[in-house]
């Protein structure tokens, strides 16, 4: 079956119309045929009754006294009517002169009354006959001897006129049906085309949407109500696609922008080294510089890749019950020297019973980002606090550090990709504004949420994680 709505509608509409038309024509034909036949039968019956009045029983003898002169229809030169009378014993009692000695076919019915049948006339034409089976009246009922004798009177007439009328009716109905179907086809095509025009409008609107500009939307204002939900879903899809492409473009632009700085450093260092012949030591210095830049760029691309995978939901997550204290300690371990050198006070208040359901690796990634951030940006001699509170089926882990120079309104931006409190790219590859982004994405990937606030120089980051069920807490 074709998938075209237009063709399917046409097939169904035209098919339906054809069935209706044929049914209607059939009914009309039947009604008309019955009406004409009944009229024909009525004439035959009337003629038979008239003739029957001329048949009498006289004693045991049946007397047929039909004067054809009074019935011109039996004497017509063309297409005369016919009659024939038989006694109950089958003896032919009388027949019309129009039979010219031939016999009409009779019926072997035993019941009295009038009935009708088709028959072949002596001249070979088709005809119709009224068969009247009756007991003739007697001149004197008292003179009737024995059981009343029945006679059979058949009056026949050719059906040429009736057949001709029926043929004409058949032609009229057939042509009418075909014509109506043809007109229906044209009308249905126009109606279907008009009915489907909104689809063409939507198709044109969709075709006008360029791949490089997904901000266009399909207008639902003048569409029929049946199409509006489809268009609304399509517009929703376009909006989501636009957002996704926007994120991708933004990510690509950000990544390219971030990689420009180390690339520029690499190119500059190499160009200067190659600008003139130099001592071996100068080349070694240049190569060492290039290696350091490449390592920074690699760190940057690793983080970019991690963010891309996280955003593309390509990171495998294996949830398990994790003791928060254990991961917090693990996150701080690499920063012991920094804490010592910068004379930071680290206060960890995480009860050993605090446990969450999380992917251990992602939780460590998130908490490590916070620890790195706090170790680097807390003012020298400042204080870092880490707390965890279990309540309402969740564990709230908070990192707070003093010495924050950001403004309170910056708190909303700290999780944005490549956002830095300072626009400097001097620490490219070391601090590239992806650490907190990765932390937030990791926490969200394990079913938690992250928020940040800045209050009187104190920077707070809060993770809300799903708590482990009480019976599964590791004590």
């Amino acid at each position, binding site marked *: 079956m074709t998938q075209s709505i237009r063709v399917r509608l046409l097939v169904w509409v035209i098919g339906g119309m054809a069935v209706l038309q044929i049914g209607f024509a059939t009914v009309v034909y039947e009604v008309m045929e019955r009406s004409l036949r009944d009229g024909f039968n009525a004439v035959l019956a009337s003629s038979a009754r008239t003739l029957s009045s001329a048949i009498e029983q006289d004693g045991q003898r049946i007397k047929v006294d039909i004067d054809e002169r009074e019935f011109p229809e039996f004497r017509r030169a063309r297409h005369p009517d016919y009659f024939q009378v038989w006694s109950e014993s089958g003896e032919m009692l009388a027949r019309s002169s129009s039979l010219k000695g031939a016999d009409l076919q009779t019926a072997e019915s035993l019941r009295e009354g009038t009935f009708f049948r088709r028959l072949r006339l002596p001249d070979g034409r088709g005809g119709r006959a009224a068969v009247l089976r009756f007991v003739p009246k007697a001149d004197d009922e008292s003179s009737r001897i024995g059981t009343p004798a029945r006679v059979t009177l058949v009056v026949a007439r050719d059906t040429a006129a009736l057949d001709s009328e029926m043929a004409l009716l058949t032609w009229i109905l057939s042509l009418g049906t075909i014509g109506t179907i043809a007109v229906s086809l044209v009308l249905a095509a126009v109606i279907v085309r008009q009915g489907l025009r909104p689809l063409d409008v939507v198709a044109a609107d969709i075709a006008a949407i360029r791949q490089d500009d997904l901000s266009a939307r399909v207008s639902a204002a003048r569409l029929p109500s049946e199409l509006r939900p489809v268009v609304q879903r399509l517009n929703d899809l376009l909006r989501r696609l636009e957002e996704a492409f926007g994120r991708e473009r933004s990510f690509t632009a950000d990544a390219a*922008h971030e990689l*420009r*700085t*180390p*690339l*520029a*450093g*690499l*190119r*500059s*260092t190499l*160009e*200067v080294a190659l*600008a*003139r012949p130099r001592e071996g030591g100068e080349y070694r210095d240049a190569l060492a*510089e290039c290696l*350091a*830049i490449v390592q920074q760029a690699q760190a940057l691309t690793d983080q970019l890749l991690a963010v891309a995978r996280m955003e593309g939901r390509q990171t495998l997550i294996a949830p398990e019950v994790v003791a928060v204290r254990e991961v917090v300690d693990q996150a701080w371990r690499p920063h012991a020297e920094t804490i010592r050198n910068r004379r930071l006070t680290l206060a960890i208040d995480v009860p050993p019973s605090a446990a969450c359901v999380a992917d251990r690796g992602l939780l460590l990634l998130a908490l490590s980002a916070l620890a790195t951030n706090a170790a680097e940006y807390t003012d020298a001699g400042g204080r870092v606090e880490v707390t965890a509170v279990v309540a309402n089926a969740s564990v709230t882990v908070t990192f707070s550090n003093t010495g924050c120079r950001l403004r309170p309104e910056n708190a909303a931006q700290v999780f944005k990709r490549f956002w830095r409190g*300072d*626009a*400097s*790219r*001097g620490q*490219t590859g070391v601090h590239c504004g992806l650490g907190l982004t990765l932390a937030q994405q990791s926490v969200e990937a394990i079913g938690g949420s992250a928020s940040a606030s800045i209050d009187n120089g104190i920077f707070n980051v809060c993770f809300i994680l799903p708590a482990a069920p009480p019976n599964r807490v590791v004590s």
Partner: protein
Amino acid sequence: MRVLVVEDYAPIRKAVAKSLREAGFAVDETGDGEEGLWYATSNDYDVVVLDLMLPGVDGLAILQRLRAEGLVTHVLILTARDTVQDRVRGLDLGADDYLVKPFAMEELLARVRALARRAYCAKNPVIAVSDLRIDTTTKQVWRGNDEVTLTAREYAVLEYLALRAGEVVTRTDIWEHVYEFTADADSNVVDVYIGYLRKKLESADLPPLIHTIRGSGYSLRGPS
């Protein structure tokens, strides 16, 4: 010519400074915005190469402060921001040129040279004073038809005098435009280099070009 490089990404800063020094410029460098602002407002630089995203004070703020204080030092913005809006904003705030990272060092040098020439209203890279010709691109010097070989410092002093040909240039001016901020030298060294230049450029059969203006400084000019 003296150039200030303000760039926080150390590899770029070091490479640019080294390249400029090797091209004969006196270069001061810093990776901090506040320090860069202090350098730029405290010294008379011919060109400032300025990154935009800097710690402390960003590059555009430095540019605004320079222009607000009436300093006309030529500024070349060096940045990874490459949108038309970024360029327009930088130029509208008073930058003289804009170069996007990564860049070709040769192009940076050419742009710095062009800005340095523009500082002295010289468009032709070849400066001619009487029969003295100086090609500021190749750093070659001719007196008449004879090429004169100069050291980088001698060339720097001569180029500065040539760019201000006919003017009286003080020793301090020469010192400030030829020596870096951290150079361990005093203005007497200028006299020493003037002496070297005279030996190489002048002779008995050639008219003097470098004239001493007693109590003021020197002036490079042909015979009147």
